[in-house]
């Protein structure tokens, strides 16, 4: 039986805007295919959870990252933000993009434990 969940793990932001963009395109494909979809942001990827950060990320041939992220949130996608990665970078936990919440590893493990596939960027 096909799993009803899908996870995309993203560890990059402006250090690899190509990967950051494709991760959200794939997440939108999962969401569009009717999957309960999670984007897990960790390492540098957590910077994307700050409003405005993705503003100037636009890869040729792709929609701007900000738009991809907004479409994802609007369609009901969930974004988990790695708490220690976020704290290490001294980011503002009171300002998060739509759909995002700061979590510890247990939340990711719980999501994946039901048999969710996960693709990593």
């Amino acid at each position: 039986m096909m799993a009803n969940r899908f996870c995309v793990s993203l560890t990059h932001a402006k250090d690899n805007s190509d990967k950051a963009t494709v991760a959200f395109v794939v997440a939108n494909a999962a969401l569009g295919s009717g999957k309960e979809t999670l984007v897990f942001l960790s390492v540098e990827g957590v910077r994307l959870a700050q409003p405005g950060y993705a503003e100037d990320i636009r890869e040729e041939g792709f929609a701007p990252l900000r738009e991809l992220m907004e479409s994802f949130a609007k369609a009901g996608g969930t974004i988990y933000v790695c708490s220690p990665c976020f704290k290490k970078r001294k980011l503002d936990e009171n300002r998060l993009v739509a759909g995002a919440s700061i979590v510890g590893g247990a939340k990711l493990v719980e999501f994946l434990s039901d048999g969710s596939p996960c693709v990593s960027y």
Partner: protein
Amino acid sequence: MGIEADEIWDAGDMGCGELVLELRARLTGLRPGQVFELIARDPGAPADIPAWCRMTGHTLVSQEHPVYRIRRKENR
């Protein structure tokens, strides 16, 4: 082509995640049994659209790239 489409959407060069996310929203807006005509020129569409239909339960009525006809599934 035989079947009259109830709605037509020219998605142009849109592909991959953007395409299916928008497609999902548009199909949801139809009534069960209605036929949606999608025009998608993305080179991934011939593989993606049938896979998307298999996953979502909508019926791919015809496929002649770039034209795809999809019948909306029943509400469950």
